[in-house]
């Protein structure tokens, strides 16, 4: 109830205005949305690339954070970043229980991820990416990330 009302309002607002580099791909239902983001400044790591984000909302959204992952498609790679696993799972405190605030929304998450990419200069994956991608069976929200790095 709360979730659907709020999502409808967010959608109305986003249709009226969206910051540059952020586009709505699909918002067919109120459970899963796809968004595209681009990095605006000329960061060579991300130039000419568009990345796709999948938002999954629980019934308790926005009290609970949505699940946000990058998804791969033919011309939508997973961006290089020391906090983004090659399966698209993002390690960002904003998306974790501790860092989430119900004041955030889809747009503000997109903006945060945009700036997380903008500020990065390392063409790297998180340490242990291979193992994590191979063996992780947990959903992103159930993973206990350790946020140790506040620089990127």
């Amino acid at each position, binding site marked *: 109830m*709360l979730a659907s009302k709020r999502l409808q309002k967010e959608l109305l607002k986003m249709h009226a205005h969206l910051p540059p580099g952020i586009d709505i791909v699909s918002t067919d239902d109120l459970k899963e949305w796809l968004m595209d983001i681009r990095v605006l400044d000329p960061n060579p790591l991300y130039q000419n690339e568009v990345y796709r984000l999948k938002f999954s909302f629980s019934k308790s959204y926005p009290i*609970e954070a949505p699940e946000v992952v990058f998804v791969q498609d033919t011309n939508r790679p997973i961006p290089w970043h020391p906090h983004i696993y090659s399966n698209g799972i993002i390690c960002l405190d904003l998306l974790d229980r501790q860092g989430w605030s119900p004041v955030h929304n889809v747009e503000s998450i997109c903006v945060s991820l945009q700036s997380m990419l903008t500020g990065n200069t390392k063409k790297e994956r998180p340490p242990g990416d291979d193992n994590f991608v191979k063996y992780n069976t947990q959903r992103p929200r159930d993973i206990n990330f350790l946020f140790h790095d506040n620089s990127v």
Partner: protein
Amino acid sequence: MDSDDEFNSSQGSEDEFMNDQDSDVSIGDADDGEFLVLRPKKSVNKFRWLDSDIDIDEGDGGFESQDKDIKSSKHSYEVDFTVYSPEQIQEHQNSQIGEVGNILGQPPEATAILLRHARWNKERLIESYMDRTEEVLESAGLGESASDPPKIEKIKGFACDICCEDEPGLESFAMKCGHRFCVDCYKHYLQTKIKDEGEAARIRCPGDGCNRIVDSKSLDFLVSDNLKDRYQELLTRTYVDDKDNLRWCPAPNCEFAVECGVKDKELAKIVPTVHCDCGHFFCFGCSLTDHQPAPCSLVKKWLKKCEDDSETANWISANTKECPKCHSTIEKNGGCNHMTCRKCRHEFCWMCMGIWSEHGTSWYNCNRFEEKSGSEARDAQAKSRQSLERYLHYYNRYANHEQSAKLDKDIYLKTEKKMSQLQISTGMSWIEVQFLESASQALQQCRQTLKWTYAFAYYLARNNQTEIFEDNQKDLEMAVENLSEMFEKPIDQLESLKVEMMDKTAYCNKRRIILLNDTAENLKSSNWEFNVVLS
């Protein structure tokens, strides 16, 4: 078979066992006083941790001196600990809140928040409060004076940032931080935090980046009564969670907490098994069911190893052999004994492991057991399989005791029946048939210990001490088997076996104590050599 499941289920069955035992005690309590004198309910004061700053109620004090007389000296494998009930924990929290509140001149609600914020380190709290009052209040989420009562307001032009509603007359709430949200969203937020996420002491304002803690006054104002109870419960929990020397009893539905002074860094030298009033024995270091004599880090390694390896290793051992030349593991999938290793093309006989060319024409029927090349190949194979066999040796014994302990639990259930039957058939009194229960308890406990001696032994490097250890292990093993066998005798023989059984029970317990004392003392003085690093 999944070894992890095995382990868990055995834990579970033990817990049930303990619970049964507990309920039994309470029946006895209600029955008459005589029973109480014979088997004093474990007094809270039995093992008092000396540095404890908790005042325990002296209700059971009558038994204290008795307990001391019975158990005058502590064994070296035992640690000091105290068990607390939820009421005692609450009481102690309140007394600390009162005490610190007086010093700081703050009301109880605020003091509680401050103490929780300081993770119940009152010295540090008082010190920092005296130095930087404003800063401490601010960081605990109590900035300025929190004296104004919280209230719900209707503000013109207000729009809630959570639900995006902006209709006029919307009721809203904000704490001192000024982050205002509609009452429905605020309530929803608190409910999710308390009910779904189990948070209590550190629920923050829903505003982005705001660190203000929702104080109990505001909370009382916003949440329903049944949620308040849960909130109080969670607050009590954080007290135990925050204190390093307190730990919840992990037994299902047990509400007691245990205090023990053993620190994490001492765990390589001590195995701090504690005994909750609910009857559950567990390790204070890792909360797993009692695993003496093996130290926590070995237990962790062992469980991991069993989970990863045991089934694969079992299968490999049962169904495969190694190529005598390149040691690749080979499974024979039927037919001829003439093996050709797919890797190195070595041709050999599956039966005797000798070179095939020496077999001549004796196809399918290996009669060349004494052939030199065959026995050499078998020797080499034996060597390379030794480590696998070594692991399985210990694992099988470990698993066997786990299994036997499970069976013993079934027997325990039958024991009760046996006890009442024995009372009827022999005219013995309830007290007189208690030897069966003591025997059953001894079996459980000794098997638990034996089980872990095998995990311990697996990591033990051989030195002079290990021989004594193995002798102790063997003695206990034999004592347990003897008692276990007697325990299964038909009812009509049990009466005549009573004295012998009591002797054997006492002997088992004694052997166990000897083994545990020896391992604990050597662990303390670092006399064991392990083939892994203890962390």
